[in-house]
């Protein structure tokens, strides 16, 4: 029972900054981010790894933070939506989501952006099929998929230095 387990000290990088915190090792990263660290951009939507709303990057790999124990973040680099833009500048993906209006209610958007960012790190020139296959686990109830695909393609072009 982790709730009554001893707390341990953890150190990891979060959006470029070193974080030291004491907590139970089995707690899911999602709740540590949202509660202990008050970074609420990462969303709870299904809690069981079926929807992708809680996607963050750990050492550049997309993970479902509702299923990712804190202990596995030890010594690693975590990226959340709050760290996607740099120095007040939006990331090209964020720009592209705005330009294509690739969101409605916006609740799934942070998870979509992080999932797309992880994809573009590995595959700077994804086909539509690559995007669909990679993003298949991210759900958008408002039904913005068509525009999200377009936005990812636009961002990919921008990041490759082509005209968007």
């Amino acid at each position, binding site marked *: 029972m982790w709730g009554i387990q001893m707390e341990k000290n953890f150190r990891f990088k979060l959006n470029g900054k070193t974080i030291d915190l004491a907590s139970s090792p089995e707690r899911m990263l999602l709740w540590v981010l949202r509660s202990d660290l008050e970074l609420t951009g*990462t969303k709870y939507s299904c809690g*069981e790894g079926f929807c992708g709303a809680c996607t963050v990057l750990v050492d550049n790999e997309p993970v479902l933070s509702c299923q990712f124990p804190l202990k596995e973040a030890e010594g690693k680099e975590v990226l959340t939506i*709050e760290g996607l*833009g740099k120095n007040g500048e939006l990331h090209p993906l*964020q720009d592209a*989501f705005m330009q294509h209006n690739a969101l409605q209610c*916006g609740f799934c958007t942070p998870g979509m952006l992080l999932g797309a960012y992880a994809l573009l790190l590995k595959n700077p020139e994804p086909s539509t099929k690559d995007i669909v296959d990679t993003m298949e686990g991210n759900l958008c109830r408002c*039904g913005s998929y068509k525009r999200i695909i377009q936005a990812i393609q636009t961002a990919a072009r921008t990041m490759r230095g082509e005209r968007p």
Partner: protein
Amino acid sequence: MKEDEYHFTLDRREFLKLVGSGIVVFFTTGDPFALQQRRDRGYPADFNAYLRIGEDGRVSCFTGKIEMGQGIHTSLAQMLAEELDVPLDKVDMVMGDTDLCPYDGGTFGSRSTKYFGPPLRQAAAEARAILIQLASERLQVDQKNLVAKEGVIFHQQNPQKKISYAQLAQGKKIERHLEEKPPIKPYRNHTVSGRPTDRMDARQKVTGEAKFTGDIRLPGMLHAKILRPPAHGETLKSVIVSAAKEIEGVTIIQDEDMIAVLHKYPDMAEQALGLIDARFEPFRSKLDNQTIFRHLKNSAQEGDVVTEKGNVEEGKRLSAKTFDKTYYNHYVAHAPSEPHAALVNIEGNKATVWASTQSPFRAQAEVAQVLGFPQEKVRVITPFVGCGFGGKNQGYQIVEAARLAKLTGKPVQVAWSRKEEFFYDTFRPAAIIDIKSGLDGSNKIVFWEYRNYFAGDRSSQPFYDIPHFRVLSMGGRGGSVHPFGTGAWRGPGSNTNVFAMESQVDGMAEAAGMDPLEFRLHNLDDERMRRVLMAAAEKFGKSFSRAPSGKGYGLACTDYLGTYLATIAEVDVNKNNSEVRVKRVVCAQDTGEVINPEGVRMQIEGCITMGLGYCFTEEIRFSNGRILDENFDTYEIPRFSWTPQIETVLVDNPEMPPQGCGEPAITSMGAVIANAVYDAIGKRMFTLPMTPDRIKEALS
């Protein structure tokens, strides 16, 4: 009671105190439903919204409507900016805050732009007239020589002579109530309204800064998890909470029927809840998704006539061919991205509530009642709402959070898990539609007899030229007939009705030996409907044949509360695994004057995509009061790979006032896909969703 005898909880003067100085214009929306509700509840009947030009020149619109993704945050701002001649980025929408906004009945039914927009325009025109008047006094220039542009009023001949709205509003406290209607701009002169406009809330949403209810943090707040029965109808028999108490920092509350575990971390509260040993009295029910339709039929009441014309018996005598079919749909969940959440903070005799709700004023009344507070001592603030679709008209989590805040003396958040969301959702009702209809010798529909069991009657009025028809509702949406909560679901009633009606029409087209488009045009006088059909067909660009042609083309059209639309789909049915792939969907919609073409297209695309869920997979399975679908592993909603090629046509109709667009296009999805599947395989699907199992059964 005379109108001036009403007791107003907050009158205009009190609102003015709250909003501070500037120029304020009150106005009343023309939504008949909202007006009635406001009267019933003792709110002022003479205004329900206002706008303010502040001393900084920014314009604020205060409305009890809420933003849940549908985009009125942007479209209403466009209407205001247009009429007031201010840049769009100078407009602030203040929405769903019961302290700052006058009463509103709730955000649903695609009513916001339709009913709120036109009076907002009038109010903005009034504000502009006041500003011109003030500028005339300050600049010593005759009003007729003054022009307003982008928040500045200047002399037409001498543009150096100018004054800004900000300067005019400074030190002013002007209150106007709109009585005479100043002229509004003809749509031809619009430069902001009618132009494709990006969402004004997008930046907050792509940076993670946008706050939803669950994102609000208060010092000392606790997260509550509440003990739930495993099934509807089960009651608590015994409970042992001692193990849960072992967790450090946990608070356990037992109050009447509620047992809650609270902790500063939500996951710890959840963990502690799991340690509670609770026994429930089992509940036996014969109802499940196999038996539900028989139960519904047996629960039918004597039918209320929704609409009728001519004499159905006479129509039957005139028929050369008759058709008698029954259509079914199962329970469907709202499944909003953001599960219901609420945070309540009580300080002294005042409560502040943050809630994911479509009805902040309803929440205010419920919280006031449960706390024993006067309504004006409860403030409901509506942050961004992550989908609603009608599912957030109700929200028991708000009352639960209020009770727990009172009992603990701390701010308390109740945020439902996905499982709770599926358990307490007010599902779209399972329903049955019986249709008898007939064609005469010239392939005209001569009679139509429609029995609606619990879908709700919206969109059940025939729009074809039928001389003899009768539409009966056999008991509304059913209420307690259903084994759990049901309610309005995006396009309530219409999804089921359009599925049945337009499937029936397709069957008649085949019997008439005509293709689906030809047959509809043959039976339609309504010019608007003919126009959307032609527009969709033109965009689709391929010709229909009499079904089943093997091509997999489907067509459906409807009138949703004044918005007309026609949808065409192209599908492939895989005969090996009975799966349907939707390749392309074209939708032509006449929504009257279009305020934000980009916003309307987004809504149509969203409707089409979301609608595929209830076509193919979305069906709540249940047994003995248990909801068997508890998450997205078994309750499948549309995903990236489902996305067809989507094309939207906005049929120009600017002379007609703007109509709603958040729901209409989803209502035709069941029919258009069923018709396309029929065209592909020659088997008609009478039940939604059209799962591979049902298609396989039809094929065998």
